[in-house]
């Protein structure tokens, strides 16, 4: 799809079977809606509310040729690269976090030309999703002007018809699929998020298909009691799965803090053994566990309880 092709994007949305009914399903069935070659947008930001449950299941289903987009991409990006599942990443930043330095896996894959890295500024990428969410081909902005990001991406400049000033136009970004992990959802897909909203709302409206994991599925009465906490309406959502600790060992605001000791070990292994280490990691954490429960068991209940306590201390 051409950048900003809102006509095609809307036709896809209209052609899709949609319903206002129930959407509860399994991780397997939800992830099964992703096709080889799809553009998959990932909710959350860096190691916050990453939909790791869905991402692991997509890898288990051995998808190929994907485009991944995310505002700040964390080690899930490395997984898809090492697994040979991704051809292109669209992001404003790729790493694990300042203390862990440059991503060795990403450098190998991008510098060798195996994976294409399309860089946008953080705001520009946010506006691309927002344009798509609004069903328009672009949004005007004052960011990115004059920088080499203009030529690297597909942004254009225009002369404002009202003021004569130069503006940057960033084209809408319409993902095929959006993956989100939220705090609460009802069975119709109405979603509530606590704390940081990140870019999830725009991503959900921008994508053709929206797959959601929720830390908790709540009842009809509960969603109706606080409708002003709902940020994504069920009518835009296609699948909902209850996945407690769905972002673990990344963080979920107020519920559990990220487990940085896991990050330390992950990076230390890659630093010591390179690509081999990430394959071992994928085998252990992605391919081996047959269920989300088996995955969580690898971390232990005590660690989860500790991270949950820690979260309450920070933002309780």
């Amino acid at each position: 799809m051409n950048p900003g092709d809102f006509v095609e994007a809307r036709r896809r949305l209209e052609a899709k079977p949609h319903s206002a009914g129930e959407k509860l399903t399994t991780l397997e069935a939800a992830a099964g809606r992703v096709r080889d070659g799809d553009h998959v947008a990932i909710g959350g930001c860096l190691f916050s509310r990453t939909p790791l449950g869905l991402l692991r299941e997509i890898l288990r289903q051995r998808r190929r040729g994907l485009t991944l987009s995310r505002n700040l991409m964390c080690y899930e990006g490395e997984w898809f690269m090492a697994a040979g599942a991704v051809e292109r990443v669209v992001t404003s930043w790729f790493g694990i976090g300042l203390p862990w330095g440059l991503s060795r896996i990403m450098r190998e894959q991008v510098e060798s030309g195996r994976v294409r890295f399309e860089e946008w500024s953080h705001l520009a990428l946010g506006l691309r999703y927002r344009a798509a969410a609004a069903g328009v081909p672009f949004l005007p902005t004052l960011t990115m002007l004059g920088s080499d990001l203009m030529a690297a991406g597909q942004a254009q400049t225009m002369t404002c018809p009202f003021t004569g000033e130069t503006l940057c136009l960033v084209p809408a970004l319409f993902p095929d699929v959006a993956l989100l992990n939220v705090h609460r959802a009802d069975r119709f897909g109405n979603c509530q998020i606590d704390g940081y909203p990140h870019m999830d709302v725009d991503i959900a409206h921008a994508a053709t298909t929206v797959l959601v994991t929720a830390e908790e599925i709540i009842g009809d009465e509960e969603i109706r009691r606080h409708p002003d906490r709902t940020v994504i309406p069920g009518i835009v959502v296609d699948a909902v799965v209850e996945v407690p600790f769905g972002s673990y060992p990344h963080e979920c605001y107020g519920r559990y803090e990220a487990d940085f000791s896991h990050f330390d070990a992950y990076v230390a292994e890659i630093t010591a053994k390179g690509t081999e280490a990430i394959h071992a990691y994928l085998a252990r954490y992605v391919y081996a566990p047959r269920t989300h429960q088996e995955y969580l068991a690898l971390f232990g209940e005590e660690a989860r309880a500790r991270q949950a306590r820690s979260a309450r201390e920070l933002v309780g």
Partner: protein
Amino acid sequence: MNHSAAEVLAVMAARQLRGVTSLFAGVGIPLLAAALAQKTHAPDLTIVVEGGSIGPEVIPGRLPISTNEMRVAHRARMLPGITDIFLLAQRGFLDVGFVGGAQIDRYGNLNSSLLGPHERPKVRLPGSGGANDIISLCRRVMVVTMHERRRFVPQVDFVTSPGFLGGGDARRKAGLLFGRVSRVVTHLAILDFEEDSKAMRVAALHAGVTVADVRDNTGFELLIPEGIGTTEPPTERELTVLRSLDPDRRFL
């Protein structure tokens, strides 16, 4: 009191915030500098972090690692979406932004994208994040960086975040109507930009630093005006407050 280069950097950055009401800051030294300013001469300063936090408080010893994690939300007054928080800057609500980069050139342009040729980089760096947005949209921007020759290059390999581009009125001509890089704060000196050419200029040296030190650590010709002053060294109070924020010295 003895002090590290990172401590000098944090103290000098904090001092730039006198009278500033709102600051766009990243994690690490910039956030430490902001917290130090808040606890000393800028009690009303509102810290804004791109991950989506307005008015958070730093927990001593539990410094945030990323701009969008819970630690940055601690005691915040608002948690807007990321796009919306940048739009605050685009509208003109943010007084000052702090930025950094892997490379900086004589016109204050920053590179955090790649080393080598664009199409096939020798080193693919993490990327802009919000750096490009902060430098494009805040009222004033200060670069906060260690002063190293490999970092201060004649021309950046890639303009991730535009300073004055080719100098003169190039920035304005590119459509960047607001904001500008007003200062470069390093562990050796405070630098600014000459009014017309927009070339980098030494504004003040830190105590014990010579012009030769600065030159040795800069990969291009700096403007050196007559009679450059010297900044006050970090005070005991500044260092004490700073160290209380980062007792494990993760950033200091």
